[in-house]
């Protein structure tokens, strides 16, 4: 099943996120276990698949990886990033995160990482459009790296709020 087709979206990196969210709700209206009708019971589509597909298309690096997999190009995406300059910058961001000790510092770091993600997204679109697969793969890895940093920023802020004890 092609996730883009499921959500009535063109198979491209730049998608309409509000259309995605809207289509998500109408798909769940039809296929959620609470809404089971005779027709949906025999369907191949289930609620859990819709949830996975939604997550895959919504999160930029997952969407990029999925597009590569549709082109049979999602090879070795978990390998390390080849771009030495990027790695230098990434290391710096990591250090900044380790040193951040106020919510304000985290917020500015968050904005910085978000800008990284935006410019990497533009880069991926170009790589993907020109079918430069090795470059596209490397950009996809960078996107995933930056998203993990965003998650770590949130986790650090959780600790600031003293929520890190045994849940």
């Amino acid at each position: 099943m092609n996730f883009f087709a499921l959500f009535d979206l063109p198979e491209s990196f730049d998608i309409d996120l509000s259309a995605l969210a809207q289509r998500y709700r109408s798909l769940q209206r039809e296929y959620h276990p609470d809404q089971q009708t005779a027709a949906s019971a025999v369907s191949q589509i289930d609620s859990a698949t819709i949830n996975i597909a939604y997550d895959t298309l919504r999160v930029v690096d997952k969407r990029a990886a999925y597009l590569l997999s549709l082109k049979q190009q999602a090879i070795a995406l978990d390998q390390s990033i080849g771009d030495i300059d990027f790695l230098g910058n990434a290391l710096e961001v990591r250090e900044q995160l380790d040193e951040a000790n106020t919510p304000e510092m985290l917020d500015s770091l968050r904005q910085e990482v978000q800008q990284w993600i935006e410019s990497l997204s533009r880069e991926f679109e170009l790589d993907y459009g020109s079918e430069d697969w090795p470059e596209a793969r490397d950009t996809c890895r960078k996107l995933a790296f930056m998203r993990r940093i965003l998650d770590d920023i949130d986790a650090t802020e959780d600790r600031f709020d003293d929520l890190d004890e045994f849940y």
Partner: protein
Amino acid sequence: MALLQIAEPNQSTAPHQHRLAVGIDLGTTHSLVASVRSGKPTILVDELGDSLLPSVVRYQIVGNQDDQDTFKTITTVGKPALAAAVEDPANTLISVKRFMGRATSDIQFDHPYTLSGDAEEMPAFITAQGRKTPIEVSAEILKTLRSRAEATLGGELVGAVITVPAYFDEAQRQATRDAAQLAGLHVLRLLNEPTAAAIAYGLDQQQAPDHIQVVYDFGGGTFDVSILRLNRGVYEVLATGGHTALGGDDLDRLIVDWVRSALHIEQTTPAELQALMKSARQAKEALSRQDRTVFAFGTHSVTLTRDQFNALITPLIDRTLAICKRVLRDSKHRIGDVNAVVLVGGSTRIPYVRDAVEQFFGQKPLWTIDPDLVVALGASLSADQLAGNRQDGALLLDVTPLSLGLETMGGLVERLIPRNSPIPITRQQEFTTYKDGQTAMLIHVLQGERETVAHNRSLGRFELRGIPPMVAGAARIQVTFQIDVDGLLSVSAKETTTGIQSEVTIKPSYGLSHEDTARFLTEAYQHAEEDKHLRSLAESKVEAERELLALEQAMAQDLSDAEALLTTDERARLTDAIQQLKAVLAANDQNAIQTAVHALKQESDQFAAKRMDHHVHQVLQGTKLDDWAAK
């Protein structure tokens, strides 16, 4: 139009057969049941008109345990049980929800109960009636609500939606489900409390598309906050968070601690502790209406002002706000995006709580629906829909509150399903063998947010056996984790090269103790045992009565005979034994009956022997042989 909906109770509303379904709010301090009647969600009241059932069960015994006639067990639920809390603290179980699905080692607050169970097991309360697990106690509350509903609605229920705190973990949800089953309720859904409240509010709300709503749910024992996006009847939970041991009870405890130090109370008996807790609750409630209150304990008293109270509870309220912050972050929204904040749960009646929430979100929160009733009302709407009474209802898209992961090398956790993932969800993970010829593999499932195994909740370990021996890394084991719409987990594993399947349903490793599991099974047969006992008792009685009748006839005849066989002394002893047997026959004690029969037999055997001699003598004196041969 309303007239058309009037129908006799018990009468089917065919052609649209209305299926009776209820929503139940199984709360820490009180529980409620609601149902949709004539299209409107309605709280069902008891015969006294009360809607709130105190979540309290008292296990009492009366009479002497050795005396079948007087011995009785009495189990009371609700108000009468609550009234006995101070007088009988050990057998009156309050706030049992805080023990549901918890291990003994998790119970770190003051309580007057005697608990039994290993550190890693769900404890049982030791009561006058013996061991009672939190599941059984909750089942008593659910049974009471079930009969209230069946009496009011006039028929058997097809099922119930039971609400749980959104932040309940796997074990707590499972325990709630088990309690419902024990109470004979078919669970249509375990529904998260804030989501239920959102449904109740959704009914009379005009929403713009993408309406962002925060539900701040501060109850008797738990705190939850959920952020939802509402779109034309679709309730999409974006993120949820909370604390399962943070509620009104904890505020009461803060007051108790304060009073203890103010009045220099060092030690308290369980009864005193319950009395203090009760007064603390009353003081807290009074301070929602007035500026100060006098706290009395025994001969001492102390004044508690609202400002003092606010200062006492500030750390806890700050904690709820910190949780709100995190949940907002998880929802990828900012405070400015929030369209409405609704207040749920009794603790939101405290003015300081309302002010703190208003200040944090920068807008006046809503409490247009009674914060004590709103969860049950929402649950009843969901139950009505799930029972099939309406098609046009809301669609709820909820999330899993805690991350799910697996143990990896070095005691670390690999996250498989992050918190706030929409449910139902299925995730697959592939594993391989690390040794040549390895035929089994251990998978340890964990729930929680921390990096290390020790800091997460262990849900269970399971072993996948029968992997065909291959070189290390050749076997492909696919493990599937599935969280259903109730938020419950199941795990299955498959070796993909040969297709060996191993299905496992997660049973939390700190579930019931073996002792309680065994007792559950025994009690299932208890009624059969009781029947057997009654039958054997009846048989003993009939036999004893038949014997008494024969003996008394013989004695009467002996007395009327010219030459009595019994001496006066013998007759007196026999009469005495007869009286004793008659006395115990009135009671239902099989042992006592058997003892009295035995005592009587020693006396009557002598009499029987004398009679036999006498008969033989008469025969030898020339009576016809036939006379006695026929006897």
